[in-house]
C-alpha cells in the first residue's frame, strides 16, 4: 500500500532552511580556515626565527679540513719527510643496497684480503651513519684507474685521496725524524687534555716519535673549516663557505743528510751510534743509531709480525742509542775529571805519580788494575789523559771524593737530560751518595769511588750527553743544548734559530781548560796518544779521547751490573773528539757496542767522519796539511 503524504511539502521553507544551514556552514568553514591560518601565522611569523635556525641546522654542516703537515728538510734543503697523496677505497654502507654483493664484486677487481674485509666490518659496527669507511688503503695508480673505469657499477663506493707522510730515506733517519701514525685513544686523550681536539678534528696522523713528535705543534698547523650544505642523507650538495687551514710549518734540521749516510755506512750492521755536533751552537749534524728500521711501516699501520720482530730483536732497533743508550762513559770523561782535580786543587798540573799497573787503598785488599799490564810508569795529568792511565785516575778520584766529582759532573750535564729536541731521551745516571742511599739503601763506600775515576761503577751516560760535555770542554765552560732543529721556513725564507744555552761550567783558572784540551790534542797527535795511530795520516789537526767500557747491555732501565755482564760481553768501543784543534767546527761521540778497544774500533769511525766532514766543508789552504807537513807541525806543537 502506497504511503500517502499527509501534507504538501513547503518547498520554499525547505529551501530557506537549507540556505540558512549552508550559510552557517560557510561561516564555520571560514572560521576553521581562520584557525588554520592563525596557526600558520604563529609558525611563519611569530616562530619564524626559531624554525629558520632549525632549518639551517638541518642543512648546514661544518666540516673540518686537515692542514697539510709541515715538511722537514736537512740543513742543505734536502727533503727528509714529505706528504704524498695516497688513495683509499671508501664505502658508505648506507648508500649500498647489498653490501656482500658489492664486496665480492670489488674483490673481483682488486686483491682485497680477508683481513681488509674483517677490519672493515669491525669498523662498520659502532660507526656513525653515512660516514665513509676505508676498505682498502694505499691503492696503486693502476688500481685507481681500474676502479675509476668501473665506478658507475658501485654507488656508495668511492676513491678518496689524502696526504700521507713518507720518509724517502727510510731507516736512515728514523731515530732523528721518528714518524707519524694514526691518532689512537691515548693520543686523543692527550689532545683533549691540551684542548687540541678541535684542531685535530680532520687529522689522521700524529707524530709518535722523534722530531715528528717533539715538534708536533709546529708541524701540524691549524685546522680549517668548510661549511657545506647537506641533504637529509648527509650527502654534500654544495660548499657554502671555506676557511682554509693553516699548513704546518716547514722546518729545517741541523742534520746533514750526507754525514748521516756516512755514519750509517761506517757503523754498518754493528750496534752503536754516532753523534756529530757543531760545538759552537750545539747543532746536531748527524745522529745515527744502529741498527735502525723503516719508519714508513708505522705510518700506514705496521703488521703485528713486523712489530714483534722489531720489539723482540736482540739488537734492539727501537732504542735510540744516541739519546737512550746508557753506557758507562769510561775513559772519555778523563779530561773532565782532570779538570775537576785541578779545580779543587787535588792535583797540580805538574804533579807526577808512578804507575805500576795496580792501585790499592791503604788497609784494603782489593786491587784495581790499569788497562796496561805493568802500568805507564811516570805520569802527570796530561800524560794520564793521553795514554789513558787508569791508576792515575783511581787516585785522583780517591782524593777528590765522590761528592765533588758528582757535583762537578752534574754541572757538565751528566745525570740529567741534555734537552735535545727528542722526547726519547734518558737522563742516565751520575752516582752520588744520596743516589745510592735512595736506590739501594746502602751507604757509599770508598771502593765505589775508585772506578768512578775511569767512568765506570754506577756511572752511565748517553752518547748525546757525552757529546754535549765534550762541547762544554771545547767552549771552556759555555754550554749548549743539542739541537736537531735548525730553524723554519717562512715565505720561502729560512730563519735559523739562535742556539740554546745552559748554565755554564765555571772554572777558576782558564789555563785548566787549556791543559785538558792540550791533553786531548796529545791523545791524537803525540805518538804515545791512544788515538795517534787512527789519526796519524789525517790532513787536519784534531783532538779527542778514547774510551773502552767494560760491558753491559744497553737498555733504558737496566742497571749496570758489572759482575754478571762483563764476563760474557766484549767491551764497548768509544771515542770523543773534535776538529780542527785550534778552531773547532765539529765534534763527535762514537759508541760501538761490544767492539773492543776504543782506539782501534771507535777512533777510526770518528776519523772517517771527520775526513768526510772536511771533504764536504774544505778547510782553508793553511789548515790543510800533507802528511809530511803534518809531521812537522806536530813536532813543533809537541815540543
Amino acid at each position, binding site marked *: 500500500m502506497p504511503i500517502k503524504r499527509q*501534507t504538501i*511539502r*513547503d*518547498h520554499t*521553507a*525547505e*529551501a530557506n*532552511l*537549507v*540556505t540558512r*544551514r*549552508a*550559510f552557517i*556552514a*560557510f561561516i564555520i*568553514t*571560514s572560521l*576553521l*580556515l581562520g*584557525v*588554520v*591560518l592563525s*596557526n*600558520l*601565522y604563529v*609558525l*611563519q*611569523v611569530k*616562530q*619564524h626565527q*626559531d*624554525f*629558520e635556525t*632549525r*632549518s639551517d641546522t*638541518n*642543512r648546514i654542516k661544518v666540516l673540518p679540513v686537515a692542514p697539510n703537515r709541515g715538511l722537514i728538510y736537512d740543513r742543505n734543503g734536502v727533503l727528509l719527510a714529505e706528504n704524498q697523496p695516497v688513495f683509499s677505497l671508501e664505502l658508505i654502507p648506507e648508500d649500498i643496497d647489498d653490501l656482500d654483493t658489492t664486496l665480492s664484486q670489488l674483490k673481483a677487481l682488486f686483491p682485497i684480503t680477508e683481513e681488509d674485509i674483517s677490519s672493515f666490518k669491525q669498523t662498520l659496527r659502532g660507526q656513525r651513519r653515512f660516514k665513509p669507511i676505508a676498505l682498502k688503503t694505499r691503492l696503486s695508480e693502476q688500481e685507481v684507474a681500474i676502479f675509476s673505469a668501473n665506478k658507475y657499477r658501485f654507488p656508495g663506493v668511492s676513491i678518496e685521496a689524502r696526504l700521507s707522510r713518507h720518509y724517502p730515506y727510510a731507516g736512515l733517519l728514523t731515530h732523528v725524524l721518528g714518524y707519524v701514525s694514526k691518532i689512537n685513544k691515548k693520543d686523543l686523550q692527550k689532545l683533549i687534555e691540551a684542548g687540541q681536539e678541535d684542531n685535530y678534528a680532520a687529522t689522521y696522523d700524529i707524530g709518535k716519535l722523534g722530531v715528528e713528535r717533539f715538534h708536533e705543534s709546529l708541524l701540524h698547523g691549524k685546522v680549517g673549516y668548510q661549511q657545506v*650544505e*647537506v*641533504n*637529509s*642523507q648527509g650527502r654534500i*650538495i654544495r660548499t657554502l663557505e671555506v676557511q682554509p687551514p693553516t699548513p704546518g710549518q716547514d722546518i729545517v734540521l741541523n742534520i746533514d743528510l750526507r754525514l748521516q749516510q756516512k755514519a750509517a755506512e761506517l757503523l754498518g750492521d754493528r750496534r752503536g751510534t754516532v753523534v756529530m755536533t757543531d760545538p759552537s751552537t750545539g747543532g746536531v749534524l748527524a745522529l745515527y743509531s744502529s741498527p735502525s728500521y723503516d719508519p714508513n711501516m708505522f705510518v700506514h699501520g705496521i703488521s703485528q709480525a713486523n712489530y714483534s720482530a722489531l720489539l723482540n730483536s736482540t739488537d734492539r732497533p727501537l732504542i735510540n742509542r744516541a739519546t737512550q743508550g746508557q753506557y758507562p762513559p769510561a775513559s772519555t770523561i778523563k779530561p773532565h775529571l782532570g779538570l775537576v782535580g785541578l779545580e779543587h786543587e787535588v792535583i797540580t798540573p805538574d804533579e807526577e805519580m808512578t804507575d805500576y799497573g795496580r792501585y790499592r787503598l791503604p788497609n784494603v785488599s782489593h786491587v784495581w788494575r790499569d788497562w796496561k799490564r805493568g802500568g805507564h810508569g811516570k805520569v802527570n795529568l796530561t800524560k794520564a789523559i793521553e795514554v789513558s792511565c787508569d791508576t792515575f785516575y783511581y787516585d785522583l778520584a780517591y782524593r777528590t771524593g765522590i761528592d765533588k766529582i758528582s757535583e762537578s759532573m752534574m754541572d757538565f750535564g751528566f745525570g740529567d737530560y741534555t734537552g735535545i729536541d727528542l722526547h726519547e731521551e734518558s737522563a742516565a745516571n751520575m752516582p752520588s751518595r744520596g743516589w745510592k742511599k735512595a736506590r739501594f739503601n746502602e751507604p757509599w763506600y770508598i771502593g765505589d769511588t775508585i772506578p768512578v775515576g775511569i767512568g765506570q761503577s754506577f756511572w752511565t751516560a748517553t752518547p748525546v750527553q757525552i757529546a754535549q760535555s765534550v762541547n762544554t770542554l771545547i767552549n771552556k765552560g759555555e754550554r749548549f743544548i743539542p739541537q736537531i732543529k735548525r730553524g723554519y721556513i717562512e715565505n720561502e725564507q729560512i730563519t735559523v734559530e739562535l742556539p740554546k744555552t745552559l748554565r755554564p761550567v765555571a772554572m777558576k783558572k782558564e789555563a785548566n781548560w787549556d791543559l785538558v784540551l792540550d791533553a786531548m790534542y796529545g791523545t791524537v797527535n803525540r805518538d804515545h796518544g791512544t788515538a795517534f795511530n787512527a789519526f796519524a795520516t789525517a790532513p787536519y789537526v784534531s783532538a779527542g779521547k778514547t774510551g773502552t767500557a767494560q760491558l753491559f747491555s744497553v737498555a733504558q732501565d737496566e742497571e749496570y751490573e758489572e759482575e754478571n755482564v762483563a764476563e760474557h760481553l766484549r767491551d764497548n768501543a768509544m771515542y770523543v773528539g773534535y776538529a780542527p784543534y785550534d778552531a773547532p767546527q765539529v765534534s763527535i761521540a762514537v759508541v760501538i757496542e761490544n767492539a773492543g778497544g776504543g782506539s782501534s774500533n771507535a777512533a777510526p769511525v770518528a776519523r772517517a767522519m771527520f775526513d768526510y766532514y772536511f771533504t764536504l766543508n774544505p778547510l782553508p789552504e793553511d789548515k790543510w796539511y800533507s802528511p809530511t807537513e803534518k809531521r812537522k807541525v806536530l813536532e813543533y806543537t809537541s815540543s
Partner: protein
Amino acid sequence: MKRFLAAIHIDLTLLVGLLTLMSVGLVAIYSAGGQDIDLIYRQVTRLGVAMVVMLVLAQIPPAFYRRVSVYGYVVGLLMLVAVLLFGDVGKGAQRWLDLHIIRFQPSEIMKLAVPMMIAWYISKFDLPPKTLNIFVGFVLVIIPTILIAKQPDLGTSLLVASSGIFALFLAGMRWRLIAYVALLAGAFLPIMWFFLMQDYQKQRVLTFLNPESDPLGSGYHIIQSKIAIGSGGFEGKGWLKGTQSQLEFLPERHTDFIFAVYSEEFGLIGVMALLAIYLFIIGRGLVLAVRAQDAYSKLLAGAITLTFFVYVFVNMGMVSGLLPVVGVPLPLVSYGGTSMVTLLAGFGILMSIGTQKRLLSR
C-alpha cells in the same frame, strides 16, 4: 563561450577556481618532486582523465543520480565487505579491490555514494528531518565508516563520515540533536581508542600530542614539516629554493605533505592566496547548493562541497601540527590519482546540479 560552457553543463566560476588550484598544484609538485618533469606529465595526464570524468558526470541530470543513489550505496557497501575479505594489501592496509581489469579502492566510491544515499533518504521526507530519520541516516553513515576504518584507512573513513553528516546538517538536523551527537561522539572516543584503532594510528595520535618525544622516529615527519613551514616565513624562500624540501628533509613531499613545501617556498602570503582559492571554490559550491532545484540536489551539492573543505582542513591541520597525521591529501594539489578522480567526479555532479534545471519546477 559562456553559451558553449552552458551547453556542456560547465560552471565557469567553479571551473576557474579548480583550474587555478590545479596550476598551483603543478607548480608545487614540480618543486617538491625534485624538478622531475615526468612527474608533471603524469599528474597532467591524471588531471586530464579526472577532468573528462567530471565533464561526463556533468552531463548526467541530477534526477539520474537520485535514482541510482540506493544502488550505488548498496554496491559500494558490498565491495567494502569484499575488500575486507579478499582485498589486496598495499602499504600495510587492505584498501584495494583487484577486478583484474582495474584495481581500485571501493572506499573512494563511498565518498560520493554515502552523501547521495543520505540525500536520497532524507529528501524523501519533509525537512527538517525527524529524529528517527536522523538516526537511520547516522546508521547509514556509520556502517561504511567502520568498514573503511577497519581497512584501516582513517582519513577516508573520516571523509566518508563527514560527507554523510554534512548532508544531515544541511537538511536541518536540530541543534539540540547536534549537541547530543557531539556528546555521544565524545563518549565514543575512548571506545575508538581501545577497540578500533590500530597501534600505528594510536602512535600517530601520541606523536601529534608530543612530536618532540621521538624526533627521529614517528615525530620526524611532523617536526620537519613544521620546520619547513616556519622557516618559510612571511614571504617564503622562493620557488625551488625551499631547503627542507629540496634537500629531502621533508617526507612525502609531493603527496600528503605538499602543503609544507608550498608554505616553505611561498610563505604566509602564498598560504593566504591558496586559502582564498579554496574558500572561493567552497563558497561557489555552497552557492550552487543553495540554488539547486530540489532538496536531494541541495543536500548532495552541499555535502560534496563541505567534504572538499574537510580535505583542506584536515590536510593543512595535520601538516602544520594542528591535527594528528591521517592520510588525507591536499585536494587537487597533492600528487596522486585516486582521490583526484573522486574529487573531480564530485565536482562533475556539482556542476550537473548547478547547470541542469527542469524548467517546470517551482
